């Protein structure tokens, strides 16, 4: 029970948050207020010209054509006036459109930049609980939806709203009684377009879902065609494709039918309202209350209700999606980084140019306990100390807590008990940027960025020179393969590093760590996915890059850490054995068992 209460409370807190979020997003539009007023003025000019057009024709008919002595000069004048206001109106609309888009684009850009900057500043726990795909949607499409609020919804509200009002005004000026009768169509249009709108939107979503299922299925089958062929399942896969294709086609046809029905209903309604005007207006002409030109104007005006009202209902949907997106973005923007810099950080003073770190690199864990959630401790009372420039290894099964340990040293998370120090200084007393300058991490999964090989080694940092990049690559043993690439260090790296092998990527990651020149180097299962021969090459590079640094290695393959000064064996969040390889083998415990299991044959470990 207490859990539910807590949850409700949190949700309430979130609701008020989203109101704040919305206000914050509106803040992005504030600097553009003056521009927006200009846009509104231009919109009004355009609408006035649109409303004037039928009025001018009405003048031609009533004052120049049906009079007893018509004169052409007046017709010509009004004709030119007509062309004039058309051009003015179009120009106003053209300028308005460009200004508005320019404004909207800058608003999205600013929101995107701030959102991205904010996400990058958040702590690791945020990334653990938020999918990357979701975050990308926030940055790319939610921001766009929010800007639609300004460029589409607000504009429509002003343009379409004003348009309906101005037409109503013109009608009232011409003849208020006929005007009141013709206003009957307005609620009818609103009702019909609102009813259809929901149906059309549902249909659209439905078809989109089915379409993406079909495409997803096709994509997957193209990727796994080999498996289908080897298992000889063509017919079965084809049947599923047919079923998905049929469902999509049926949905698509249904969607199309509804949209045709909607459009035809609208055009039927348009003609009905013209007939209504003929009837009501005709009677009025008959009784000499209005002239023929006025009737003409009414017939034109009543048709001008349709598009604006339709667009207003359409934009009501835009508003809803914008609000949802605003809430999502707001949720991210309001998340505060969990790990924050201390108010009074330790200043580390580098001794001289040869020692740019200002620390020796002694790492100490002192009775450290940690859990990702309140009740799930994953590390229990861990203590160890690594002298400067030592090489230590961590082994244990998946889930034993090895990677967590490294995440604590880099202060991706804050610990619940104990302390972690470097040269006796608590990691929480460093500025995060200072702390991270001391370290480099090489992971099993090598992250590559679209850019050149050199960019990937220097991580796009302007302060790392080409010479440093090359030297790092040479030391890591990556120079040879980089030179062999077309373009060498300037060779472009494709997305996901498709043009590099696993081993090459890992060498690149070593070079990257070297270029960063850390005092403490962390290798997290860096060699797990390699074949033995490649690993042997890496092993040599590893020894070179570890020289002069404190190196902590998490290993899947035991061969990687055979030479370590100390090996810590972990199990279920505790260190259960420690010592070097020879000592641990002699002990005949958990480590010795792991070593035996990785041996190739059963016969052999009986002899070992």
């Amino acid at each position, binding site marked *: 029970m207490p859990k539910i209460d807590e949850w409700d409370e949190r949700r309430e807190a979130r609701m008020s948050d989203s109101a704040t979020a919305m206000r914050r997003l509106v803040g992005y539009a504030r600097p553009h207020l003056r521009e927006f007023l200009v846009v509104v003025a231009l919109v009004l000019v355009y609408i006035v010209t649109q409303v004037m057009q039928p009025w001018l024709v009405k003048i031609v008919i009533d004052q120049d054509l049906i009079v007893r002595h018509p004169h052409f000069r007046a*017709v010509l004048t009004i004709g030119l006036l007509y062309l004039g206001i058309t051009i003015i109106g179009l120009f106003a609309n053209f300028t308005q459109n460009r200004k508005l888009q320019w404004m909207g684009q800058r608003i999205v850009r600013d929101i995107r930049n701030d959102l991205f900057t904010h996400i990058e500043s958040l702590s690791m726990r945020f990334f653990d609980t938020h999918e990357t795909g979701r975050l990308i949607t926030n940055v790319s499409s939610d921001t766009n939806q929010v800007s639609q609020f300004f460029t589409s919804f607000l504009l429509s509200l002003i343009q379409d709203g004003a348009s309906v009002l101005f037409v109503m005004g013109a009608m009232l000026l011409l003849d208020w009684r006929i005007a009141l009768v013709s206003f009957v169509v307005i609620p009818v249009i609103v009702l019909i377009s609102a009813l259809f709108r929901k149906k059309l939107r549902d249909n659209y979503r439905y078809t989109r879902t089915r379409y993406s299922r079909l495409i997803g299925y096709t994509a997957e089958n193209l990727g796994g*065609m080999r498996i289908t062929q080897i*298992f000889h399942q063509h017919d079965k896969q084809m049947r599923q494709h047919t079923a998905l294709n049929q469902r999509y086609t049926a949905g698509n046809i249904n969607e199309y039918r509804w949209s045709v029905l909607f459009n035809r209903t609208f055009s039927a309604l348009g*003609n009905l309202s013209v007939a209504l005007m*003929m009837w009501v207006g005709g009677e009025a002409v*008959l009784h000499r209350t209005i002239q023929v030109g006025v009737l003409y104007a009414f017939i034109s005006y009543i048709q001008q209700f349709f598009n604006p009202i339709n667009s207003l209902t359409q934009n009501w949907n835009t508003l809803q999606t914008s609000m949802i997106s605003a809430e999502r973005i707001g949720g991210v923007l309001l998340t505060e980084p969990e790990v924050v810099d201390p108010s009074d950080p330790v200043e580390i003073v580098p001794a001289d140019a040869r020692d740019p770190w200002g620390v020796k690199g002694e790492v100490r864990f002192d009775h450290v306990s940690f859990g990702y959630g309140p009740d799930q401790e994953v590390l229990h009372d861990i203590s160890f100390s690594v002298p400067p420039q030592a090489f230590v290894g961590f082994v244990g*099964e998946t889930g034993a807590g090895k990677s967590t340990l490294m995440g604590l040293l880099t202060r991706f998370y804050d610990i619940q008990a104990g302390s972690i120090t470097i040269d006796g200084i608590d990691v929480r007393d460093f500025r995060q940027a200072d702390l991270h300058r001391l370290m480099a991490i090489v992971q099993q999964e090598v992250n590559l960025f679209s850019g050149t090989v050199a960019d990937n080694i220097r991580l796009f940092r302007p302060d790392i020179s080409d010479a440093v990049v090359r030297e790092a690559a040479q030391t890591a043993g990556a120079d040879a393969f980089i030179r062999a690439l077309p373009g060498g260090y300037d060779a472009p790296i494709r997305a996901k590093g498709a043009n590099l092998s696993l081993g090459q990527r890992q060498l690149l990651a070593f070079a990257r760590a070297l270029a960063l020149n850390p005092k403490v180097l962390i290798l997290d299962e860096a060699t797990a996915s390699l074949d033995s021969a490649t690993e042997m090459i890496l092993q040599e590079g590893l020894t070179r890059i570890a020289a002069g640094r404190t190196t902590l290695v998490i290993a899947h393959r035991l061969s990687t850490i055979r030479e370590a000064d100390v090996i810590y064996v972990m199990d279920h969040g505790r260190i259960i054995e420690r010592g070097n390889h020879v000592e641990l083998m002699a002990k005949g415990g958990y480590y010795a068992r792991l070593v035996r299991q990785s041996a190739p044959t059963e016969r052999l470990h009986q002899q070992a």
Partner: protein
Amino acid sequence: MSPTELIREFLLKRKWSYALGIGAIGVAEFFQVRIPHILGDFINRLKGGVATEHVILGFALELVIAAAGYVFLFGLGQTRIGRLGRVMEFEMRQTLFGHWQTLSTRYFQQHSVGDLLNHTLNDVTAIRQAMSMGLNQISQALFLFVATLYMTIRTINLRLTLFSLIPILFIPVVIAIIRPQVRTRSRRVQEALSDMSELAEESFQAIRLIKASSNEPIEVERFRRKTQAVVERQMHLVRINTLFQALVPLLSGMGFTVGLVYGGWLVIHGHISLGSFVAFTVYLSMLVQPLMQFGIVINLFQNASASMIRIQVLLAVPPEITDPQEPVTDVSWTGAVTVRNLTFAYPDTEQPILSNLSFTVPAGTTLGIVGRTGAGKTTLLNLMVRDYDPPAGTIMMDGIDIRSMRLSDLRHLIAYVPQDGFLFSTTVGENIAFSQPTVDPEAVEEAAVQAQIWDTICAMPEGIQTEIGERGIMLSGGQRQRTAIARALIKSDARLLILDDSLSAVDTVTETEILRVLKKVRGQKTTIIAAHRLSALRDADHIIVLDHGAIVEQGVHRDLIWQDGLYAALYRIQTGGEVAHA
């Protein structure tokens, strides 16, 4: 069959349906052009002062009837043609998928999934748009254009029509020129947007690295450049869009001005009636739409014809791996494999991947294949399942060249576990029973138990019914591999089991268990295991060591250690030299 033929056949088969659709649109336009005419007559009567309330109501009703006829028939025709276009789209997707199923592994290695998907995403859609929207619009535009011209010339005035039409006739020209530009520019916007998303993706995925190296400011700067590029390209598009949105109404406004002035002159001089003048203004506004459509339709057909060519090329690709003319059947297969003098280079390459391999795997025994990455292990296994065709007479099953076997027979005999553990996005149970959808649950369970995945499955929220996501994303690498092993083991009547480095992501304890199970079933199956990790080969009866496509060593484990060659070297690396002296 080429797509042109496909479409021709489709049209012929449904020619009456199409005739009905187009016919309905034609008659609909006949009704539509009545409307301004009715209005004109109505105005003339009113102006002449001869109208009565009765007459007025009559005109209003006439207009309602004409409108009803137009709306109903046009809707009918539109729906019919739109539906046919979507049925054609359905058939085209079926044809494409069916064709892809016949193509070989080589084809899929040469073409990225993304490129192939473009056929079903863009090309098929482009053809459907031309065949439904395009056909609808062109029939509407043609009928409406002709009917309107007829009405204006016949009932109003030839010269008035011609003069007013001059500016309006530029509309299709403007559209045909600007629309492709709009498309190009909006594609460039899309590219900039996906560039931006990609950067966000790679940055979020590398967040540990970025944080650990304090690289956030650099990433933000890179991202800013991308968002700026988006703004610039968007404005590039906006510029042409706004121009386009202004030009069309400008041209029609000019036409209208001519109609107003010249029409007024004609009324003043008594050449046409006021009613005709009013009707003419309505006709003019009706003409704008079909003329815009001419421009759009031109583009639609241009796109569709480019798409047709691409699909034509795709459908012309012949299947590479096919059944023999006279397949050998009626053999009781035991699963003995013989490889004789096998040399193989991938098509269009010079360098052989495998050179002069010869070995035999007696039925019911286990062969291990070892070698570095690129030594040719996977190629050899791919030849056995005929992903590629080996040279004739080099790979034999029970003495019979696998190329003389029906593909379905060969693949029925083989249970195969791929390197990447590819799974489909259905339930874990359906993945295991992939080759036997009708098998009973016990068999699935048995296979899962054998592959050491059953306990994992039981721990999943919906057990065997758990959806495992796209390509099995919900599972870890080792779980995927074990599921793929279960998928192979369920083929109980297969005679040859092939594992292509399929235990690499499985931990050593589980590996031991799986090998123990394989040892039990191997009495019934010949087994071939390729592996990096030598521990996976501990039960092999015979091991061949490949290097640069040739067998450099072979024998049982102990012999290979004594030979002190490549195998022994690999062994030392993997054990850290621990037992090299054993």
